């Protein structure tokens, strides 16, 4: 494979490329779904191919193919150059890239049990057992659970001389119980919503989640939500549980700080950003206690790796330091435009897509108090948990989130259960309203398995780490619901 990779680079250079890189990838995957007491589906996937990215005549070109042999490598390398030369017809200036070191290296996700080598029978048995516990709870109508895993082997080589081999091991899962009554539908998930928790990790992470141990509670809460109070409308202090806050970080910090997006690359699809480069080092993005970093070295993070998809070594970088905008998620091309080094955030969805700037692990640094302390110090608020809906404008400013469940907080104590909780706000005002973040004991890295961006659309697996946090005077109950 290394010989083929080198041949590809040679062909690209002879065809006119001033820079070229190639990723040859094989990804194996597996997904098991259980629903209402039965195995719903089992899918075992395998996808292999290569993608060649070049700069020719000062512009990018990319071509890919699932067929990995010498003649196809040559065809695709020359096609990538042809595509680049077509792009160059509209260039304003030649591309410039921030420098990167040459690396000859290997990386494997730290893990104990390869999730694809754990017998299917074991996974099915776990999900059926969990499912049975949920279905025993009266009032539960639908039960769904899943386990999925991916193992990707990648060879990266570039005309800089880098040759990097990586094996990324990822897995996760979760479940939900749904209760339906009198036109109302409520559900509760474990360990979090939108399919579950996902990590760069071995199967041991699924074992540690103890699916059966939490199934009854999830099912009981789903039923209880049917008769819970509707979320009131008004202004309240809100405390966001970790998985909900992780999605808030994803949508209102990770995405607006993708530098390619800031420069207009996503204007036709994912949108732009309010955090333009004139705000760098100036914008008070959040309160003084808000520090958020990009850290693809974070253990277990779904957005962790050894090197990004243009050969930049994974490293931690400040995005927001003590509330102030400090840097962006960037590539070699975009970083150069702001006079900085790449933060190593170029990632592609498989071999067939061109890398674009993506989130890695976007982590909110923990505070000092425990969650219990923060709740006890909240006079009148709402604790919201597990995301149910999320929507944000195309500049990443106006947002609206909803959660599966919430609880009233009165005089420092958790009270009655609330359903259909929603809150809305504007990104910088929201983060500047953060006045308490729980400590390291409550900190967790949460995975987002299907972040969409790019044209053609790509899915990325990202992560956001955080402890629960409090935000003062947020507008809640924005969607009138049924009683």
């Amino acid at each position, binding site marked *: 494979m290394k010989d083929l990779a080198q041949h590809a680079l040679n062909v690209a250079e002879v065809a006119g490329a001033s820079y070229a890189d190639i990723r040859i990838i094989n990804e194996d995957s597996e997904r098991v779904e259980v629903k209402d007491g039965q195995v719903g589906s089992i899918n075992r996937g395998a996808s292999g191919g290569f993608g060649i990215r070049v700069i020719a005549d000062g512009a990018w070109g990319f071509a*890919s193919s699932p067929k990995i042999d010498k003649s196809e490598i040559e065809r695709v390398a020359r096609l990538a150059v042809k595509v680049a030369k*077509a792009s160059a017809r509209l260039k304003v200036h030649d591309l410039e890239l921030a420098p990167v070191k040459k690396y000859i290296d290997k990386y494997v996700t730290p893990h104990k049990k390869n999730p694809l080598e754990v017998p299917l029978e074991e996974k099915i048995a776990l999900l059926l057992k969990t499912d049975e516990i949920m279905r025993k709870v009266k009032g539960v109508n639908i039960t769904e659970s899943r386990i999925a895993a991916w193992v990707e082997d990648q060879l990266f080589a570039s005309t800089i001389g880098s040759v990097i081999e990586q094996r990324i091991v990822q897995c996760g899962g979760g479940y939900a119980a749904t209760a339906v009554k009198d036109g109302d539908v409520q559900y509760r998930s474990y360990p979090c919503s939108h399919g579950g928790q996902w990590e760069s990790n071995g199967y041991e992470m699924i074992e540690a989640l103890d699916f059966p141990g939490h199934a009854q509670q999830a099912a009981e809460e789903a039923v209880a939500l049917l008769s819970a109070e509707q979320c009131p409308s008004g202004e309240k202090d809100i405390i966001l549980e970790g998985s909900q806050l992780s999605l808030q970080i994803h949508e209102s910090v990770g995405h607006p700080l993708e530098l390619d997006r800031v420069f*207009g690359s996503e204007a036709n699809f994912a949108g732009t950003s309010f955090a333009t480069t004139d705000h760098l080092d100036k914008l008070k993005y959040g309160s003084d206690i808000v520090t958020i970093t990009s850290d693809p070295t974070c253990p277990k993070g779904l957005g962790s790796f050894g090197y990004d998809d243009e050969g930049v070594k994974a490293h931690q970088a400040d995005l927001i330091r003590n509330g102030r905008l400090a840097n962006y998620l960037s590539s070699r091309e975009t970083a150069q435009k702001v006079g900085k080094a790449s933060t190593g955030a170029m990632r592609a969805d498989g071999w067939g897509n061109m890398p674009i700037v993506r989130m890695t692990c976007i982590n909110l640094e923990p505070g000092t108090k425990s969650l219990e302390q923060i709740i006890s110090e909240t006079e009148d608020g709402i604790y919201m948990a597990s995301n149910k809906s999320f929507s944000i404008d195309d*500049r990443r400013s106006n947002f609206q989130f909803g959660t599966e469940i919430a609880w009233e907080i009165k005089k420092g104590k958790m009270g009655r259960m609330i359903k259909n909780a929603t809150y*809305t706000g*504007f990104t910088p005002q929201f983060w500047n309203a953060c006045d308490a973040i729980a400590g390291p004991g409550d900190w967790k890295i949460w995975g987002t398995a299907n972040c969409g961006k790019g044209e053609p659309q790509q899915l990325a697996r990202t992560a956001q780490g955080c402890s629960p946090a409090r935000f003062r005077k947020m507008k809640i109950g924005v969607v009138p619901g049924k009683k």
Partner: protein
Amino acid sequence: MKLSVQKIKSVNLDGYKMMMDKKQAQEICQKALSFVKEGQAEVTVTQTVSPLTRIANNTIHQNVATSDLSISLRVDIDGRSGRATANQSDDETLRNLARRAAGAARAITSRQELPPLMGSQPYREIKSYDQSSAEMEPEQRAEMVLKAVKLARTEKVELAGLVSNLAYHNAMANSNGLFAYHRISALTMEITARSGLAAGRHARMVRSPSQLDPEQLAGRAIQKCLGGVNPRALEPGEYTVVLEPEAVTTPLMFLSWLAFGALAVQENLSCLSGRLGQKLMGDNITISDDAYHPLAVWSEPFDSEGMPKKKVTIIDQGVARGPVYDLKTAAKDRTETTGHGLPQPNTFGPMPRNLVLEGGSVSLDEIIKSTKRGVLVTRFWYNRVVDRKTPIITGMTRDGTFLIEDGKISCGVKNMRFNQDLVEFFNNVETLGVPESQESMVVPPLKVNNFHFTGLTEA
């Protein structure tokens, strides 16, 4: 070691010439099935060539030529089913594919409720392939971009967008003799024009390049952008909205996966549950799923079970008639499949793919002229479900939102957030215009009263 120019073979760069034809697709299907030694099997072979030229800041900033093959094999053994996929068609890969799928099936210890694998089916032909869009070169796409950008530079705006052509071949077969094959080609151009914080968008998907005028398309986007400079802020509240067809696809898309499939109805999750035969929407609302509609650019005559697609009238002059079915949900309701199945087995149920909202005879301009005061919406964005059953969705307006006063567009307005009950929406439709193609759907522009805007943003 670097190669000299002379030593590199002159190779045909065109991926399109390597696309499988019907005969080759059938051969791959048969070969895949031949490696299944136990039980019954079904295979789907899909090949796509999908180059895309992407535009930002009046330049081509990303330009990709991608192709892929997907072979998906389902094996059913004694009432248990496993599926495996691969993207190579050599013998060793197909042998492994059969082994992995069968292994998955055997790992299941108790029987599943599996739909059967049906035999040979008759299919209606849908003409959806045009060589001129299937085989476009990078230079042709760049030329289209150049025309659009030239206009943008004259108007001093910046363009983002894409030009993409697609060739798609899909074949499926099973061990009971079913074989189906269809191919689609399409050309898409999307343009978002920007000037400061103002933006305007226009997009089309067509069968052939001759149906698309890049300058005209870009011109519409640019006109919207320039019309939206210095937007006003409107107070949240209920408004009459005039929706361009792209915006109309949003409520329909959500109804398609939340409400119009039989599994959602059977599970009591759909707004149709318990309401079949009852008046649910306005008299002027008729929604069907019709893969054979002449304006649908993206459609196939069979579903993922190989069953022929039928036209289904889901809402008939406001009355809920019935959802779409697959084999499993049809058996439960003792009816016939309508040909809307997803790959089986699955936990999602059937889904409409080609919704058609019957329209009227007035143009968008005439609808605007007839509006005393309202908001013209180009499209909705980041739309998500807030309440699954009702259903209520939220989202934002984007890329061209305007105030209509006394039948004229008076100014641009800042983008707004909406929270909208979709059944209520379809009870408040005042006017339906002339339908047009929106990729897989056919929809008219609409005037809708009492639309709920609940917030606004800075731009």
